[in-house]
């Protein structure tokens, strides 16, 4: 039931105060992590949108396309789930967040693994 083939290695960070993402059809995913194929793409963190690597600059276009794909009434309810590897540096994550802000995609979700309260 996977929608995309992962091109980046992602181990989600842990969190306890989590919410469930309710409507899956209103969620778009942005993956950030080290490329799976390191020999070919190096170990620098990359962004994956759908089935391909992308640069930060491609995000507004991605947001627009994702909005287009939804019915008009739901477009403002779109959530962008950031699936980011825990070892990623914040620099790239912030860049992505800034682009999302610019494109007015303000509802985001930091995907995490749930752990029981310690």
């Amino acid at each position, binding site marked *: *039931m996977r929608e995309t083939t992962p091109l980046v290695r992602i181990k989600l960070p842990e969190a*306890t105060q989590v919410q469930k993402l309710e409507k899956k059809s209103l969620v778009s995913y942005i993956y950030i992590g080290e490329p799976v194929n390191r020999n070919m793409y190096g170990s620098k963190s990359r962004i994956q949108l759908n089935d391909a690597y992308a640069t930060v600059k491609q995000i507004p276009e991605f947001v627009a396309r994702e909005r287009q794909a939804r019915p008009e009434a739901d477009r403002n309810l779109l959530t962008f789930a950031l699936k980011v590897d*825990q070892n990623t540096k*914040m620099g790239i994550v912030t860049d992505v967040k800034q682009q999302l802000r610019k494109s007015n995609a303000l509802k985001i979700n*930091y995907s995490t693994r749930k752990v029981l309260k310690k």
Partner: protein
Amino acid sequence: MARRAAPEINAGSMADIAFLLLIFFLVTTTMDTDIGITRILPPPVKNKNENVDVKDRNVLKILINSHDLMLVNGKPGSVATLPQRVEDFMALHPNNPKYPEIKEKYFPQLGKKVMMTKGIVSLKNDRGTSYEMYIKVQNALAKAFDEMKDQASMKYFGVPYKDLVNQKKIDLINELVPIRVSEAEPENVGGQ
């Protein structure tokens, strides 16, 4: 030609086949359970130089450097003690200049004025901060605000926040306990 009875299919292995199929689907199905911390980003600013002046006492500054070390208002802090710090900071302390100012806000749903803190948590991280640390801090902040929501919910409705069903009540609590976290643009000190 004499009618012969159709040979019966050997169904002895049917159970095994079904079992194998079951195992196969069990293994190949990935149930993506999407959970995480939901946040609303601030809307884009049109005027870049538009800086909102906030009084020093109203801000709890959290800094994280590229080595994932934390400073809370200039002193070293830790993720473990952060929720308490934030709760203490956001609690109402009338006439105490060390704590944030307090303002009154009228809630038509309650039909009365409620004291609200003007406190705000400012989170600033380095470009070299790890995402793991960032989420830990976000989680700690979420914990503090969740607890405050619980307290407000217990006070007004007598049930914990997560047990509220009525959307109006949930909205009211969200209004009473706004998640006042501001994220500054990160600095590039540690180098990336």
